[in-house]
């Protein structure tokens, strides 16, 4: 019944063209792996489309896409279990090498290698605020928290990140 009000396919593709890159960026800094990030972007859009196809209504497509991706990332960490840097390094993963090779940028490799030392909750906030460029209130709405809580958490997360980068 709400089909006509719902998102049309053309709109959906436009949404991909507009948001694809920022979603990719988000997942890339969250999981520190280009291939995984690409897969996640695709899965996010496919899952969302299937949801729309079922006739479900989505109020805010952008927020919904981020929501789906966030769930995928949580699943990813749950599956790999080894969320810590040590475990990843043990597996022979070197974020610095990979990102330098891929992106050819010192900033990117620095950010990625330091972000990976943070817990995913902190990393999420930093990525949302400084990579995605969402405002505090936007993040608060997405995570269903008050602005205040988000500001405090973000502040602490940045502090931790600085400590990782500095020494």
């Amino acid at each position, binding site marked *: *019944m709400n089909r006509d009000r719902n998102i049309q396919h053309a709109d959906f*593709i436009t949404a991909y063209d507009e948001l*694809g*890159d920022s979603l990719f960026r988000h997942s890339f800094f969250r999981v520190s792996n280009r291939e995984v990030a690409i897969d996640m972007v695709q899965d996010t859009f496919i899952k969302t489309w299937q949801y729309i196809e079922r006739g479900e209504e989505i109020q805010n497509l952008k927020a919904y896409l981020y929501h789906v991706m966030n769930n995928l990332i949580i699943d990813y960490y749950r599956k790999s279990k080894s969320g810590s840097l040590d475990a990843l390094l043990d597996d022979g993963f070197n974020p610095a090498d990979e990102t330098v090779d891929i992106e050819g940028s010192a900033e990117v490799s620095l*950010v990625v290698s330091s972000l990976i030392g943070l817990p995913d909750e902190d990393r999420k906030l*930093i990525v949302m605020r400084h*990579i995605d460029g969402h405002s505090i209130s936007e993040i608060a709405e997405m995570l269903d928290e008050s602005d205040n809580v988000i500001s405090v958490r973000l502040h602490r997360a940045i502090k931790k990140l600085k400590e990782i980068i500095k020494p």
Partner: protein
Amino acid sequence: MKNLEHILHTASKKVSMRDSEKTAIRARLLSLEQKQISQKPTLSPFSNLYLFTWKHSASLAFVAIFFFSGGVSAIADKSLPGSFLYPFKTDVNEQVLSWFAVTPQSKEELNIKLAERRLLEAELIADKPSVPDEVKEEHLKTTFDQVMVATAGGSEDIAKIEAEVKTEAQDASADSQIAPAMTKISTADADPLEVASSSPLSDSVSLASAKQATPAEEITKLRNTIKSLRIDLIKQEKDGPQKEETIKMQAKLLVAQKKLLIVSDPKTSEEKRTENLLQVNALIKITEAFLNTKPEIQPTTEEGASSSPIQPTKPTQEETKPTQTPSAPFLQ
């Protein structure tokens, strides 16, 4: 602080999907859309309820047509024990048939029909190597159950004959000579049989005698023939190698006896009567041929079933021959 934010910002600016990656995902998403487009016209404004049925309408329609037009049951009807449609045949098709058989008479007829079916199937699978032995054995059991159901239906006559056949067979085997046993049957045992079937027979005589030769005697003769054939079979079964064959023969004769009972029933239509008699006669001939080839087979098992010389010593032959010849004009 500012420095860090700047780093993060520049880092984020430098990360993006490559064009190839972007177009790959885009193509994937577009293909999702195309799938949707093909379904689009079928979506009604009223919705999700119809979504399921419309999506699968073609296949659903096909399945429905197949079922309702009896496609499955037609195929199942030809299935044999061991095939996966066979349960459909016995449990569904024949169950449906039984719903239509309302009167006791039609029920009886159906039971006979089913018994004959089982027998036919038993014959068809007998020489099929693809059917496992357990299935054959199992099927033989159900065949006998069906035969029992068919023959037991409402008549003490069969039970009586059955008891006689058994005692006769025992006597005969004790005598070890077949000839005396046969004479015994034809003389002593003819009487109770006559008594047993006299009442319906006399009715049928009064009805049918006006049109055709009296079937009453004919029927008793045929009955006695069948009885003697069965006794012969029981004897053969004891020493013969083809035990299954003889058992099947027995079952067929049982069914034949039942058919004769139906013939003797005054309510039976003329057509049915002639049809049954024809079948009974045919069966008698087959059984005779079977019994005659038997001694020949014993040493070498197979070969030369039809070409075997007739054994004059066999009493069944003498016994049954005369009954057949008069039956021919009657059946015309």
